[in-house]
């Protein structure tokens, strides 16, 4: 009865079709005819092609188990009922092909009636796979572009990209691998897994996995092409097979991330379904692979540039035409002491030294007009108030109203330049001074000898020659002092250390100046402890110290003055002092008294013949033997010079 009925339906439809010029048979849309019991009565070639069934094999079979995925069963039944009830119904849904793959379709159910009685329904399918793929492709693309736009590195982008792609193709798990050039292995960068999949073991094996070229995801690295595995649980070469089975994952596809023709990583996706290779998916992701590769390339370039920006010892910055910094690197903080926020908060010209501001503004103006700033130097104020010399190179991009600038901290070099100039000037001063000092006694000798040669009176001649002698002595003294000072300064003076008794030494020096003392009518007293210990020193040099101090006292004390020398112990040291009732030393001069070539402001009232080396030598010598020299004075009242030296044995 049912057979008969079925044959009738098919015959009826065919008869109609003939009238319609074979519309059903030649229709590019897939058409299936079912009876009121959901059994297939006929289908057209387009249906056979779309679902992979031959008509002869499915005639009389229930339609739903053939082509309806489990999750769509209720929807399919509801559609059929509408059709049987005489209504046309439309639905965008999914159906399954014979091979198990799912296709997106637009399904129209049209009632089939015969002589007013509903006898079944037409199912008309339009394949939406291509359209769906295009949509998915777009969605995935959009999601990936979004993910990349918000990420600086592939590491940041990975979870978003994996999720976007997996969701767009409705797969459950994705993993991204990156080529580790050093290890020459693929290393898992990130993994994304749908919430409803428990893939703990698989995730662990994936995250910890390291794959060589040609192994696991490394196969895609090797072939440089997308790959598809229908069921990884049955793939002998798939090492994470058991874990995949435990997670219920079956089909997999992977594609390489390609940068300039090189594979730099691999992305793989897994699904719980068992699916035949889908060319459209593979094609879509081959393109995505290149896109990801290009992103990695850009982010690496960016990273390199950032690396230089961060690492640079120079001060790098980007500034706007508005006069504010937009970005500064860490060297700014290191050199000037400001935080980046502080630097960005005020017009940068505010930090420029007032004296350099005008030149800086002129440079900026020409820079904005498209010029180049090169080898320009200015001073920047540091947070601590000091200034640093910066040497600038800068270029502007007028279109963007931006200046890129590099500044080098040139302070040290400036300082060295300054010091070199100072040293040169000092050397010039020294040469000038010494030249003058040498020429003066030389002129004296020369002129006195000239007078002596021309003179007629014998006494006169003798007197001229006497003056020439004195000038010569002064010259020799000057040369010797200069030599001593120079050797003491460079530490090259050879000293002979021995125990020296200062009391004896002072007595010897006094003997040498007896005449001078008598001429000026001074009174010299010497006080000393009877058991004065020796000092360890060079007797010749120490003699010079005593001589210089004593002759100063004699010279700068008006006739009839009092000079008192005292020697005694001062703790572990021996102290020698000389007090005079002389002209004293102005306060302003006291501080510089022991400097080379320095002469107190008031010495010229007495003479101009001193070299400014005497006290300098005293200091050099006393310090050479571990002692100190001091001076106390009151202008017009007198002066006390004192030096201390370690007692013998204290110096090792």
């Amino acid at each position, binding site marked *: 009865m049912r057979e008969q009925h079925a044959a009738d339906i098919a015959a009826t439809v065919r008869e109609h079709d003939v009238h319609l010029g074979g519309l059903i048979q030649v229709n590019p849309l897939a058409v299936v005819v079912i009876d009121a019991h959901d059994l297939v009565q006929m289908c057209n070639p387009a249906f056979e092609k779309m679902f992979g069934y031959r008509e002869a094999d499915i005639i009389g079979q229930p339609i739903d188990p053939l082509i309806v995925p489990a999750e769509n069963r209720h929807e399919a039944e509801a559609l059929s009922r509408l059709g049987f009830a005489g209504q046309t119904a439309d639905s965008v849904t999914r159906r399954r092909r014979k091979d198990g793959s799912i296709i997106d379709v637009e399904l129209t159910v049209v009632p089939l009636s015969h002589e007013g009685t509903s006898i079944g329904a037409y199912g008309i399918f339009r394949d939406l796979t291509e359209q769906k793929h295009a949509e998915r492709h777009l969605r995935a693309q959009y999601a990936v572009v979004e993910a990349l736009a918000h990420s600086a590195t592939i590491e940041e982008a990975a979870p978003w990209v994996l999720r976007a792609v997996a969701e767009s193709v409705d797969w459950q798990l994705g993993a991204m691998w990156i080529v580790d050039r050093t290890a020459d292995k693929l290393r898992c960068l990130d993994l994304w897994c749908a919430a409803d999949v428990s893939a703990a073991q698989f995730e662990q094996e994936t995250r910890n996995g390291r794959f060589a070229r040609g192994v696991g995801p490394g196969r895609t690295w090797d072939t440089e092409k997308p790959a598809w595995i229908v069921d990884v649980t049955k793939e002998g070469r798939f090492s994470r097979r058991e874990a995949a089975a435990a997670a219920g994952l079956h089909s997999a596809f992977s594609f390489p991330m390609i940068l300039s023709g090189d594979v730099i990583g691999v992305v793989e996706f897994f699904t719980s379904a068992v699916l035949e290779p889908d060319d459209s998916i593979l094609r879509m992701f081959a393109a995505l692979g290149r896109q990801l590769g290009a992103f990695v390339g850009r982010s690496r370039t960016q990273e390199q540039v950032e690396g230089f920006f961060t690492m640079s010892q120079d001060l790098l910055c980007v500034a706007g035409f508005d006069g504010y910094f937009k970005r500064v690197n860490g060297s700014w903080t290191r050199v000037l002491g400001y935080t980046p926020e502080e630097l960005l908060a005020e017009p940068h010209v505010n930090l420029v030294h007032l004296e350099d501001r005008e030149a800086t503004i002129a440079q900026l103006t020409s820079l904005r007009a498209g010029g180049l700033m090169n080898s320009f130097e200015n001073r920047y104020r540091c947070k601590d108030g000091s200034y640093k010399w910066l040497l600038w190179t800068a270029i502007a991009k007028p279109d963007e109203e931006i200046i890129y600038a590099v500044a080098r901290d040139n302070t040290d070099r400036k300082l060295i330049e300054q010091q070199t100039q100072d040293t040169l000037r000092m050397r010039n001063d020294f040469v000038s001074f010494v030249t003058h000092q040498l020429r003066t006694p030389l002129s*004296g000798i020369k*002129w006195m000898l*000239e*007078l002596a040669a021309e003179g007629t009176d014998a006494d006169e001649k003798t007197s001229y020659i006497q003056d020439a002698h004195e000038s010569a002595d002064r010259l020799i003294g000057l040369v010797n002092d200069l030599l001593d000072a120079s050797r003491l300064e460079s530490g090259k003076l050879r000293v002979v250390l021995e125990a020296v008794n200062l009391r004896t030494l002072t007595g010897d020096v006094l003997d040498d100046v007896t005449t001078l003392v008598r001429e000026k009518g001074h009174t010299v007293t010497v006080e000393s402890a009877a058991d004065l210990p020796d000092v360890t020193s060079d007797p010749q040099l120490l003699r010079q110290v005593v001589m210089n101090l004593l002759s100063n006292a004699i010279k700068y004390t008006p006739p009839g003055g009092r000079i008192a020398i005292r020697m005694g112990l001062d703790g572990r040291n021996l102290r020698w002092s000389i007090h005079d009732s002389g002209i004293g030393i102005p306060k302003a001069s006291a501080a510089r008294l022991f400097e080379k070539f320095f002469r107190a402001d008031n010495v010229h*009232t007495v003479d*101009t013949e001193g070299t400014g080396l005497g006290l300098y030598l005293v200091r050099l010598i006393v310090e050479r033997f571990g002692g100190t020299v001091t001076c106390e004075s009151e202008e017009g009242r007198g002066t006390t010079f004192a030096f201390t030296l370690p007692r013998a044995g204290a110096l090792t």
Partner: protein
Amino acid sequence: MTKSILLAEDDKFLRRAAETKLKQAGFDVRVAVDGDEALAQAREQPPDLMLLDLLMPKRDGLSVLKALKADTVTAAIRVVIISNSSKDLEMQNASDLGAVDYWIKSNLSLQELCDRVQRLLGEAS
């Protein structure tokens, strides 16, 4: 008429030698041992020529020269710097301040010094 010379020189040997020589040559020579004295003497009795040392006690030669040129009484005095310093800067300063010449003592014999003075004073008369 005997020309007068004011010799400002702090070094006693050079002062004595130059004074002796110039007097022998017939000049009326007065001496000053420091800057203050030089200025005072020049003001008191302006000489025909002043031989002025630079490095002197109390007031250096350039300061004396400046003061002389700023004072109408002494501005016309012809001043020759006699120094043993040969710093370019000092030479330039002396010239700028109106010194007629700059002689380096050690490079001159007393005779040459005397000849130069004679030439200068001869031109003037």
